[in-house]
């Protein structure tokens, strides 16, 4: 007798929780809100993802890491589809994700600083006495800041 093994979306989600953003490795792709949908059809799994930034070089690697993680767990019939609309926004980042960012030393996106300006909270000492050094940081998604109190430089994950 053949027993159909049902693939549960929960199981897939748990596996995707282990796939991290290569450039901000404390965030999983679930934290970032890159995974838009999981479609299961028998043995076939389709993962719908959306890029954060248009030119984000991490997207190809993320797609490959999704494939690897699923394959390691015995899921081999995987299609990864990238969609552009609706465009990704930092609003989709989870609260856990924002906390993890701060713990990692990156200020989380904040609607008050939709346009980067002085005063983003320092992730090290929580001071608001900070200055914007450059709207463009080490990766497309970040701006560069310095804290006037603890003097530490830090990245701010820009609103998008």
């Amino acid at each position, binding site marked *: 007798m053949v027993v159909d093994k049902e693939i549960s979306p929960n199981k897939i989600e748990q596996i995707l929780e282990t796939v991290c953003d290569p450039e901000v490795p404390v965030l999983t792709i679930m934290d970032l809100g890159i995974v838009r949908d999981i479609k299961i059809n028998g043995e076939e799994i389709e993962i719908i993802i959306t*890029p954060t*930034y*248009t*030119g*984000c*070089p991490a997207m190809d690697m993320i797609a490959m890491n999704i494939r690897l993680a699923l394959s390691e767990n015995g899921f081999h019939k995987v299609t990864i589809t990238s*969609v*552009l*609309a609706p*465009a*990704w926004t930092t609003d989709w980042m989870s609260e856990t994700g924002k906390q993890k960012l701060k713990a990692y030393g990156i200020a989380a996106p904040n609607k008050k600083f939709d*346009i980067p300006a002085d005063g983003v909270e320092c992730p090290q000492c929580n001071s608001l006495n900070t200055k914007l*050094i*450059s*709207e*463009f*940081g*080490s990766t*497309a998604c970040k701006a*560069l800041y310095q804290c006037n109190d603890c003097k530490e430089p830090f990245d701010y994950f820009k609103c*998008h």
Partner: protein
Amino acid sequence: MENKLIDHILHLADTTLILAQRNAEWCGHGPILEQDIAITNISLDLLGQSRNFYQYAAILIGGDTDEDKLAYLRKEREFKNLLLVEQPNGDWGQTILRQYFFSQYQYLLFEKLQNSKDEQLAAISAKALKEIKYHLRWSSEWVVRLGDGTGESRSRMLKAIDELWRYTGEMFVPAAYETAVDIISLKNEWEQKVKTIFEESSLPLPENVFMQTGGKQGVHTEHLGYILAELQYVQRAYPNSTW
């Protein structure tokens, strides 16, 4: 109909690719580290946009075409980019002014394209628009800083205007394939925005300049050939090589 759309998508792809390539020439040469990073970030955004356009064009063309073939194996006369974006970097002022002229245009254009009837064109444009806002703010601030800066920075901006203004008219002369949006209608607003920034920078708006055209039809200035020679070198020297 289909061919018109393909040509339009290729025009958008080529324009963003060539400006990405030009801006990337600054990598490691920017005046200060933060600005080196800024111009190369902008380059990366533009490269991402061009990839989206080439990927879409490849789907429309069909067969075994892909984004790499479109970028690496087409010849100079097949490239449909704006003349403006192929102009040499010159000094920092000239690069800034080229970026500002383009970002101001791209912002107005993509605002329209994001409502295009073509869903993929609309999606690519809506996504890119978020990044273009940053490019526009950054480049316009730099135009003001240099125009209203020292005697030296001002004289360099005047020279940059003299070099680049003649290539701005082409943006608003529609090619036969540009039917997705009425680009003539963007001209007035673009000029108004530039006028505002120039007034803030104490820079004069040129008048009665003969405008160069041809890029959209594949007739380029002498600079594009050199850009492609470098950009396409590996694929030409080692056909089908991959990373």
